[in-house]
């Protein structure tokens, strides 16, 4: 069906939805009928579109954090360890020079082959990874370095040691740390933005998504297993919670979309990196004039306002 048909339906739905209905009362049959039509329409078109993005976001050749680091930064110096227990290889952190200024970069790192995937734990960080992120952010804050985070994780690692060493608290404290920073911060979801493990390093002044990245509260498979009791319904789940960049922008969860080369970032990593570089520099330039207090204030206000509410 054409876009016109969807627009027409949306219009009528909007009109009908405008009629005040008491909470808990059944929607009128007309409204339900229209909604079913719209549902089918979406099934025909955007479901496939959304799922294609899920697949691209997880594409095994998609550039990872270090692929961008080597293309974006001069003089990369990687920092290791959380200064407490260990070095979590699922998160990389370091300093480098971007367009002549020193920046701190923190990102999830997936592995390319079996061996590296094991070392990187598929980009699923343990608390030590978030603690490494925190200490790097604090270091950058002390020295006035802007911070760029690259988000690409299926989620924080669900493990026995991870829980014993405080996974939830580490994720909470990493967010709290980001909300206290007085330096400009830009987060870019470059692949999978999986739940708490992703948002832990994505509480930034500007949050961007690459065109084919996804940002989710739970993996499509996890959602399907819980709500439909069937992990195979992942495609359905993905279209229900709309994890693609366009929808995230519409919901004002992100501030912008970074374009990718035709076919996706993996088709031409150099071009993808160039486009990312352009976005990063534009946003960092934009933020450069703001005082630390102003950055903190508006960053907190932005996240404070997230969500959609109704009143009775």
């Amino acid at each position, binding site marked *: 069906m054409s876009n016109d048909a969807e627009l027409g339906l949306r219009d009528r739905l909007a009109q009908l939805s405008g009629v005040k209905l008491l*909470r808990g009362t059944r929607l009128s049959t007309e409204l339900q009928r229209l909604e079913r039509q719209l*549902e089918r329409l979406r099934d025909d078109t955007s479901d496939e579109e959304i799922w294609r993005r899920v697949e691209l976001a997880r594409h095994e050749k998609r550039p990872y954090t270090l692929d961008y680091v080597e293309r974006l930064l001069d003089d990369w110096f990687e920092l290791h360890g959380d200064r407490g227990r260990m070095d979590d290889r699922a998160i990389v952190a370091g300093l480098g020079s971007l367009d002549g200024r020193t920046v701190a970069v923190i990102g999830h790192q997936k592995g390319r082959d079996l061996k590296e995937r094991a070392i990187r734990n598929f980009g699923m960080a343990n608390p030590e990874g978030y603690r490494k992120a925190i200490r790097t952010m604090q270091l950058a804050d002390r020295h006035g370095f802007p911070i760029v985070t690259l988000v690409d994780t299926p989620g924080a690692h669900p*493990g026995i040691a991870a*829980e014993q060493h405080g996974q939830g608290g580490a994720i*909470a404290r990493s967010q709290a740390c980001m909300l206290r920073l007085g330096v400009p911060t830009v987060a870019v979801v470059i692949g999978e933005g999986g739940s708490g493990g992703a948002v832990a390093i994505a509480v930034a002044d500007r949050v961007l998504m690459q065109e084919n990245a996804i940002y989710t509260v739970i993996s499509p498979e996890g959602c399907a297993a819980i709500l439909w009791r069937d992990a195979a319904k992942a495609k359905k789940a993905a279209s*229900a*919670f709309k994890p693609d960049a366009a929808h995230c922008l519409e919901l004002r969860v992100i501030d912008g979309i970074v374009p990718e080369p035709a076919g996706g970032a993996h088709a031409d990593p150099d071009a993808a990196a160039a486009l990312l570089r352009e976005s990063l520099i534009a946003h960092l330039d934009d933020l450069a004039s703001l005082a630390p207090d102003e950055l903190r204030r508006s960053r907190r206000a932005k996240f*404070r306002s997230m*969500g959609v509410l109704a009143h009775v």
Partner: protein
Amino acid sequence: MLWMSTPPGHIDVSIEHKRADPARSDGRGDHPNTCPTCGSHYRDEELADTLRVCPQCGHHFPVRAPERIAQLADPGTFDEEDAELRSADPLEFFDLKPYVERLAEAELRTDLGDAILTGRAAIDGHACRIAAMDFSFMGGSMGSVVGERFARACERSADEGGVVVSVAASGGARMQEGILALMQLPKTVAAVGDLQDAGGTLLSVLAHPTTGGVTASFASLGDVILAEPGALTSFAGPRVVAQTTREKLPDDFGLAESNYRFGHVDAVVVRSELRSTLARLLRLFGGAR
């Protein structure tokens, strides 16, 4: 003295509970008033009289938000705030039924507008705000309303340099609100930051279960963190961890006692002492000169 107000109507929270975490549906007591630890069975009034703690073995049954507040607050002091807030449905989320229908059903069943109840109260004469979660409302999941009510409680308390007492009981972020539910993590974290920067205090109580997004946000940021005995308080649930690691989990995996041992909670407090413990902390935090 702690249970003077009328307990709310009985609601079976065990079904929600099992849905959230099937690993625990091991046949240990199917009726909500049957103790899953020792098998003793109680009438509802009996359990209300013991703060919903099993007199035989000390098992802590779930407590709904209104009853929790009645257990903690001085009688007649609780004054609910932001009761008018409800979830919208920006994603028009539809799984087996529409999200709006799930919300309406939950509201009818629980008599709550969402999974958290917030407002002013006094505990042993100390003014504070209480934010108590209710697991029987969609598994205590955190969506826009839970985030907003919690954040407003923090903001109002921040203006007064006051104390927020939160009692968490949640399966995590509410999937039906998609990415907006995830954004309630930084939202509540920001609210705690504002509260603490203004000299205010968060006393965080973790009740069974506190998992996922709530563990990964405000509940872990208390100036002091208390947990109820036997409460599961983890980021990932035991089933997910078992499936991922294929290792045998320790018997106390994710439980309050384990988190105490590993340094993530300050004290494990039995329910009969929760009110007096909070009163002591309120006194101490109010004692700066």
